[in-house]
């Protein structure tokens, strides 16, 4: 009934969809197995993509030739560039999505890829021969062969949903959990653990009084995620901000004795930075209010997402408490909030390609690795799909460095440090943040991906054009000079100090008070040429000119650190033969099997002196 596949992807969430699309776009024959064809690419939590650090990841996925950016652009209902007031490394694109359109667009995108087949079923076990994957077996008892398998099970592995004192098996509300895989992987020698996450109630937008809330509209000139030519929004929907208060908190507290969190029924560790509302009022008792973002779920639906009110208290308590929130006096609930516990596999069991150490050609991506967030899942799926394809074709893997991409930071952190709580990306996790900006993901990654056959010609020529234009821009601005008598009046008008001698436009643009628009007025003869350049190139050039010294400082640091990253350790290195290694260091090294000295130095438990010993032992 089935041919032999190159790659089977189990699960069709953000990770699974990217994995299937990437492997197939590179030429692999892919089978995507999902428990329900109607729920491909669900946004299980909030209807939004991007945000601080996450928006950068979406840009990186796009630069590599992934789909999340394109689909987000086509299905967004609002766009905001967060952190505009901060430096360019902090600018973070975020959109509100139409939840249903997003899922629909993903399904259509996958259907358009001829090398992707679909099968609705539940995978019960993986099939192994000589320590290597040979396929999967489903709940219908069907064995399907493949060279590689990517597991992206999300919250479905032994998923357990809690609402108050009630709990029941499920992978999402209204959907079955998946059993069998965890048990099999444990017998194969995998370690496993439990994690917890939660989601807020969804309510009827027709029952809310928005006049009592503060409007949060989209950007006046909305941006987008993809570096490709995707349409910009011409109309947008607003979000709304309101606050909890002490009355709300008091009502919530009456449910604490029934809370699965506080009663100890939930064993898994939840994300500290994404706490439930009961967690917030419990841990931060001194705060008498917490912010609530009211987010529309689409262009036309009246369903509304109550961001900031994640809870697993009994539904009647949820309802009563919400009614005390300004604007929510007459609220009608569509679905209650809930908490969900699920199995994950500590990611220290993976290689940097996301392949497991234990079983060859088996890859893990997404929440199964202990992460949280659509963006984190999607980028892992992409990397797992790409690396599965490369491995079965005996090509070199794609491993992104910490200095190259947030994706590199994410995977490096997971593999080397593991995670005890759901891992979310922050800009502070990236030590080379100044280099990993949303404006230059294409410059950082597209060429690399195109060389592998993933990013297409169009992307490659777009980024080359952008680089050319940027270089030309910087060159012209450093060559064009202006005289004091010519510009000092204008400079005074722009509230910046006058110049004393002939000065280049580049020097002027370095001033914090001046932007490219000012330059156009300072040198009107260049205005039309400047306007002929793409906005991307103008932005890129301006950032490079303005923040040159910081970028350079960071680049030097990378250069210094990269020497360690270039020192390879052979994969079968015998750590037991090195007597000088500390006991703990040796154990951790044996487990993680780092590929470079740089990676070894980031493993917790490996000391600086272990690193010196290793450096002596790796012959080059």
């Amino acid at each position, binding site marked *: 009934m089935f041919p032999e596949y190159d790659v089977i992807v189990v699960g069709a969430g953000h990770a699974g969809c990217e994995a299937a699309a990437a492997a197939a776009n590179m030429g692999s024959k892919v089978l995507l197995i999902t428990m329900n064809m109607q729920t491909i690419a669900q946004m299980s939590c909030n209807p939004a993509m991007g*945000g*601080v*650090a996450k928006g950068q990841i979406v840009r990186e996925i796009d630069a590599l030739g992934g789909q999340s950016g394109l689909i987000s652009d086509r299905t967004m209902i609002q766009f905001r560039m*967060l*952190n505009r*007031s*901060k*430096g360019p*490394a*902090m600018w973070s694109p975020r959109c509100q999505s139409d939840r249903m359109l997003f899922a629909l667009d993903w399904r259509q995108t996958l259907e358009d890829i001829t090398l992707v087949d679909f099968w609705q079923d539940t995978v019960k076990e993986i099939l192994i021969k000589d320590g290597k994957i040979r396929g999967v077996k489903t709940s219908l008892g069907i064995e399907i062969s493949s060279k590689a398998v990517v597991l992206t099970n999300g919250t479905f592995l032994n998923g357990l949903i809690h609402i108050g004192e009630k709990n029941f098996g499920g992978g999402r509300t209204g959907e079955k959990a998946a059993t069998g895989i965890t048990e099999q992987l444990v017998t194969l020698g995998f370690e496993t653990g439990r994690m917890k996450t939660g989601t807020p109630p969804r309510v009827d937008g027709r029952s809310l009084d928005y006049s009592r809330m503060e409007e949060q509209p989209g950007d006046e000139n909305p941006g987008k995620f993809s570096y490709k030519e995707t349409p910009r929004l011409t109309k947008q929907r607003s979000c709304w901000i309101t606050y909890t208060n002490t009355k709300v908190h008091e009502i919530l507290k009456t449910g604490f004795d029934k809370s699965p969190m506080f009663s100890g029924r939930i064993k898994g560790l939840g994300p*500290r*930075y*994404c*706490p439930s509302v009961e967690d*917030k009022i419990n*841990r*931060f008792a001194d*705060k008498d209010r*917490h*912010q609530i*973002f009211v987010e529309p779920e689409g262009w036309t639906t009246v369903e509304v997402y109550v*961001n*900031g009110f994640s809870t697993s208290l009994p539904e009647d308590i949820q309802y009563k408490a919400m009614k005390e929130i300004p604007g929510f006096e007459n609220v009608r609930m569509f679905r209650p909030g809930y908490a969900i516990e699920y199995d994950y596999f500590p990611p220290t069991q993976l290689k940097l390609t996301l392949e497991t150490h234990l079983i060859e050609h088996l890859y893990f991506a997404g929440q199964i690795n202990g992460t949280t967030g659509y963006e984190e899942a999607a980028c892992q799926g992409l990397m797992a799909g790409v690396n599965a394809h490369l491995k079965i074709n005996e090509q070199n893997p794609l491993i992104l460095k910490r200095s190259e991409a947030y994706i590199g930071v994410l995977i490096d952190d997971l593999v080397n*440090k593991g995670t005890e709580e759901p891992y979310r990306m*922050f*800009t*502070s*996790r990236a*030590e080379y*943040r*100044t280099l990993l900006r949303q404006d230059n993901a294409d410059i950082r990654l597209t060429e690399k991906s195109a060389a592998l056959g993933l990013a297409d010609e169009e992307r490659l020529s777009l980024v080359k054009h952008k680089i050319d234009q940027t270089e030309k821009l910087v060159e012209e601005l450093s060559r064009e000079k202006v005289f004091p008598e010519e510009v000092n009046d204008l400079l005074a008008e722009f509230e910046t100090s006058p110049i004393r001698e002939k000065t280049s436009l580049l020097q002027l643009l370095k001033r*914090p008070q001046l932007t490219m628009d000012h330059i156009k007025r300072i040198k009107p003869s260049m205005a039309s040429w400047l306007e002929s350049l793409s906005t991307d190139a103008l932005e890129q050039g301006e950032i490079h000119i303005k*923040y040159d010294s*910081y970028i350079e*400082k*960071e680049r030097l640091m990378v250069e*210094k650190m990269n*020497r360690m990253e270039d*020192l390879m350790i052979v994969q079968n290195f015998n750590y037991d033969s*090195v*007597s*000088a290694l500390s006991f703990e260091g040796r154990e951790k090294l044996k487990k993680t099997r780092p590929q470079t000295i740089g990676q070894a130095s980031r493993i*917790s438990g490996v000391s*600086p*002196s272990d690193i*010196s*010993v290793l*450096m*002596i*032992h790796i*012959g*080059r």
Partner: protein
Amino acid sequence: MEKPFIQQQEPICALATASGVGAIAVIRVSGIGSVELVNRFFYGKDLTKVKSHTVHFGTLQYKSLLIDEVLATVFRSPKSFTKEDSVEISCHGSDYIVRQILKMLVSEGARMAKPGEFTQRAFLNGQFDLVQAEAVADLITADSDVSHRTALNQLRGGFSKKLYLLREELIHFASLIELELDFGEEDVEFAQRDDLRQLIMHLHQTIHPLIDSFSFGNALKEGIPVAIIGSPNVGKSTLLNALLNEEKAIVTEIAGTTRDVIEDTLVLEGMKFRFIDTAGIRETLDVVESMGIERSRRAMEQADLVLFLYDSEQTLREVEQLAKGLNTEKKYIWVQNKIDLPDQNSTFTSEVSSSENQVKISAHAQIGLDELKSVILAQVHQQAATDTVVTNLRHYEHLLKTSAALDEVLNGLDAGITGDFLAQDIRLALFHLGEITGTIVSDDLLANIFSKFCIGK
């Protein structure tokens, strides 16, 4: 196996001969630009133009101060121990001189080598085969363990505690900034920029005494440098001899080889003192001039403690002239000599000398020497009691870099730059502090963010 290639890294320096005192010490500098670096202080042939494997005589001078006469051996890549460009400086075997030279190299761009780093570079550039390398591996780990312990031991008294507190404060500061960056959209309260500035100022106040203490800490280890300043025939040598003779525990650096010893060392109540420029140092090479002003100034600059010696109104005026340019933080003692002579035992009035640190002695008749010693000791004890002391050059180096990074933060605050760039310099400061305490930055930051603040969404 990959073909070995020569990789030249940033210049590092260290003492290559055994620490302690020998007639000669060798300092090794290796890495990109190390020849150019040494050449900047080397007065003799232009080292950048000489052939590899040649030895050159010259003097090392830093900021117009003569440090020593040395031999410099130039090794050009790949024909050196590390296979990088290297210079070996043979200088006189005084710890003091070695420190001065290392300090000079570090202040101009070299970095103190980590234990075994030369060997490591040599290995990485294919100097050793694996068997040889394995043989030195144990040695190197032992080295770094010991040096780590030593480093911790050297965090004496309040230093270690101070440093940890400092780091904690800085991490708190950094996490406020990071919080602002990662959760700026949300309902989080941040410290004001003014508070942050206060915090940095406070950090500066903590770091600077530590940096300043280095010369004193160094002095504790090497001997506290003391200069005896005075006009000819005022009794400098007599005083020194009196101090040295009276004290039976005379420490000359190597018994019987006084010719190679630059200074005389004296232990008072377990405290080591080093008298600068008082005997033997290339006396014959110096141009003899009435006051030896230049030499006196130099001695005063190097000294932590200055004894101004005079025996008349005339000689008092002369030392007062010299004292005018003296750094006010320097400790000094006014010593009136020859009080055994009847016509000399008068009190001279003078503006500068009316300080409390006045002692009247007769070096020749050995009068007042005990009082002088107790005044000397009191000066040192005062400093030792109030300051925490940094003795390790590597620590000193990282404190300097921490301070420089903090300066950048302050500049950034003044210029109103955004948090992400402030954070970049704060991370750098934390990185350098971490190099001393051996801890990693980013994990601490996140842990701190989560432990202290309520974060939305």
